[in-house]
């Protein structure tokens, strides 16, 4: 299979395959290359950008990488945020005790060994010789303090991540090791620690005020922040004393542009090297250019339409199933997303713990949908689908397309109401289920790669965003939480997924793809968890 890189001279040939996610395995994450690609090596046509002084693609002297995302950080405190963009920016400088590889597998971080103790606690044995960017050594006390700062409201700040590590009882620090005990059994402790919990230095946090901590970084990660321009850009240099060896990148620049077309333009003008969320219609422009290629990966984010179980007509299971039959997800993926998405049938994504491979999506069948609506007794009903604007890839268009398909049923009328994400979220997370929207589009990223992290918050009766109250499902989830045998736990979660499919609390839509545009000057592979790791990038 020819790759696009080899092929862009005659890119006007009618049909062409461009290898991305899986296919790039041959280029390798660390290898940097087949070296056969003479054209990209020459870089001659970049000359005009030379005046910028920030263009990473010039010459061979310095390896500069620019990353442009949709939004900048919300401050540099790694424990005082709850969103992906900030995580990407602070994640260059901070690390956790565990980490994940590109596919989502758990790997060593600041702890080189980890184990579950007999009483269900987890213990991390810290790596030797890890230093913070300010030169101080990492201690077990720092790790203890960081965990406590996240989970306990009376330590440091009230962290929005306090639920992300499970219900922590206490943290103890020993000689080069840290033990975390939980209230009850925590079957997914390592999944949680591999995704969350960035380690900060206790003395540095305590000596500096909140404003300082949000403008400076002192982590142990591969990059050290050299310049922070709030809302504009963050500049990094490689941390020479990084325990895993300093990254190849000589200068890293993180910036943001909320407009996808602007990001693509910047990529094509060689002002940046990696851009996030390339919309489907821009893909061929990127691939058709000489300077960049699309690189996409199935993400850990699922898109769905929530239906509240306690209000008519959504209280009817038949009606909910009817809507699942009414929406032609395949067509939406094909036409709105140009194929950048996988159809889903259950809350858990393929590859995540608890995924049930035996569940098929509801087939698109308007006739069946109309029959079910009739049966539910809600024929002629008028419903409104609320959708956020611009939060997820093509969210408004997807909502409009789905609503249009529902509307074309003979016995249902459906309209779309667009909402600003923050105000929609305010309703979706309302403490009382009665204040939540009846029918809305939402996306959920499961960074822990564990089905329970979707099912529990979104579908258990105690979940913060739930639209469902089903004793059977609650029971299964409670069981899963207490089950120590991983295989048994998977079975329980699979059962829960089958139940969720049948109950149809959502119109199951699709798994979102992370679509990146990557400059041909660098070789970099995207990750399944939406994080960006330029330390693995190599110069082409």
């Amino acid at each position, binding site marked *: 299979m020819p790759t696009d890189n080899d092929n862009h001279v005659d890119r006007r040939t009618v049909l062409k395959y461009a290898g991305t996610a899986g296919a790039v395995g041959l280029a390798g994450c660390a290898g940097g290359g087949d070296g056969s690609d003479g054209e990209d090596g020459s870089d001659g046509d970049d000359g005009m950008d030379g005046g910028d002084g920030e263009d990473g693609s010039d010459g061979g002297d310095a390896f500069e990488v620019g990353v442009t995302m949709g*939004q900048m950080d919300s401050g540099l405190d790694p424990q005082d945020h*709850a969103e992906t963009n900030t995580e990407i920016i602070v994640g260059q400088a901070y690390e956790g005790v565990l980490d994940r590889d590109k596919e989502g597998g758990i790997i060593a971080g600041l702890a080189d060994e980890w184990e579950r103790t007999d009483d269900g606690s987890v213990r991390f044995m810290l790596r030797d010789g890890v230093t913070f960017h300010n030169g101080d050594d990492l201690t077990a006390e720092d790790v203890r303090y960081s965990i406590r700062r996240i989970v306990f409201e009376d330590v440091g700040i009230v962290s929005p991540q306090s639920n992300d590590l499970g219900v922590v009882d206490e943290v103890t620090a020993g000689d080069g090791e840290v033990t975390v005990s939980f209230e009850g059994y925590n079957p997914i402790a390592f999944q949680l620690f591999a995704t969350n919990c960035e380690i900060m230095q206790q003395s540095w946090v305590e000596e500096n005020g909140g404003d300082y901590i949000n403008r400076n970084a002192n982590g142990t990660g591969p990059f050290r922040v050299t310049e922070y321009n709030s809302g504009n850009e963050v500049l990094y240099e490689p941390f020479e004393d990084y325990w895993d060896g300093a990254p190849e990148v000589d200068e890293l620049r993180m910036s943001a542009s909320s407009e996808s077309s602007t990001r693509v333009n910047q990529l094509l003008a060689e002002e940046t090297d990696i851009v996030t969320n390339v919309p489907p219609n821009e893909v061929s422009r990127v691939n058709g250019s000489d300077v960049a290629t699309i690189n996409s990966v199935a993400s850990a984010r699922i898109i769905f339409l929530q239906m509240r179980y306690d209000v008519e007509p959504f209280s009817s299971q038949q009606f909910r199933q009817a809507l699942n039959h009414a929406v032609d997800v395949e067509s939406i993926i094909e036409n709105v997303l140009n194929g950048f998405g996988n159809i889903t049938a259950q809350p858990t994504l393929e590859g995540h713990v608890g995924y049930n491979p035996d569940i098929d999506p509801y087939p698109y069948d308007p006739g069946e949908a109309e029959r079910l609506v009739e049966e539910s007794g809600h024929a002629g009903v008028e419903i409104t689908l609320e959708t956020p604007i611009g939060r997820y890839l093509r969210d408004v268009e997807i909502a409009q397309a789905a609503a249009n398909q529902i509307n074309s049923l003979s016995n249902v009328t459906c309209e779309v109401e667009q909402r600003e994400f*923050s105000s929609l979220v*305010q309703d979706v997370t309302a*403490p009382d289920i009665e204040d939540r929207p009846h029918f809305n589009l939402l996306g959920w990223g499961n960074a822990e790669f564990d089905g329970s992290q979707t099912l529990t918050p979104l579908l258990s009766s105690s979940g913060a965003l739930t639209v469902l109250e089903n004793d059977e499902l609650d029971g299964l989830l409670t069981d899963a939480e207490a089950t120590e045998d991983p295989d048994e736990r998977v079975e329980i979660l699979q059962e829960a997924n089958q139940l969720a499919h049948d109950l149809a609390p959502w119109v199951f839509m699709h798994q979102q793809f992370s679509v990146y545009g990557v400059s041909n000057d660098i070789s970099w592979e995207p990750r399944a968890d939406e994080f960006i790791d330029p330390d693995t990038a190599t110069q082409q």
Partner: protein
Amino acid sequence: MSLGRFALKRSLQGIGVVWGVVTVVFALRFVTPGSPINAVAPLDASQETRQAIAAELGLDQPLYIQYGQYIFDLLQGDMGRSYIRGQEVTTLVFERLPATVELAIAASVVAIVLAIPLGVISATNRNDPVDYGATLLSLGGISTPNFWLGIMLILIFAVEFNIFNTSGRGVDVGDVALSVANAEPFVGTLLTWLAYITLPAIALGTYFMALITRLTRSGMLDELSKGYVQAARAKGLPRTLIRYKHALRNTLIPVITVLGLQLGTLIGGAVITEAVFSWPGLGTLVIESINNRDWPALQGSLIIIGTSFVLVNILVDVVYAYLDPEVVND
């Protein structure tokens, strides 16, 4: 009344207006449904977490205490800390302000440098093709949505012809000035600066160019028909002097007032231009703050915008008084 006293009187009035601005901005939060906590807490945060966050942000205090505290802090230059970023709003706002001011000034320069000669040429060549051209241009200018113009400019000059950068700020004007001191290539830095600022400045400046052209043209026509112009011609004064020193000067007096009032439009335009060009200024901060319900940042931005407006208008009034000495005595 002397010019100094006049300036002082206007400044005192300005302080009153700024207080009004602060109060309105503060009141805004209480006529807005929903709690700011949702902006801070994650989607699946518990009620306990939410309450703890509210207490941390001081949102559990009664209204008048929050207001009093806000004014008290404000007088010391403290606008609180951003809910979202955890950073001092004062620093945040003053970090963003220069970018917006730079853009606004660049746009004004583009507008004024093009518009005044265009208006004068248009007025002095009335009903010539050049007048029709300028009239149509200015008509188009005041009728074109600037965000759309920005998109079209990017499409043509950045994407198709690759002359300018698509977005972002690159270097600021201070870098250009410092490049000499730092022995960096001045021309290179200047070109980089121009590559970034030109398109947003045109997108933002076009409306004003059009407006000033129209005002200048009609003002000049008005002034050129006045007796003193005929008298100046009768005494043999060079045309340049008659047009620019005499007629234009008097034309600009009302133009300046209108521009002062239109400063709000300039800042409003900057908000949307910044959005189109990813220009890291106050406008982007305002929109981000609104979308995130980041009240301290929103309040801080609005107060700074309002205060700038008041300041510039005091300045305009003083300039006006200088140009037209009779104003002071009214």
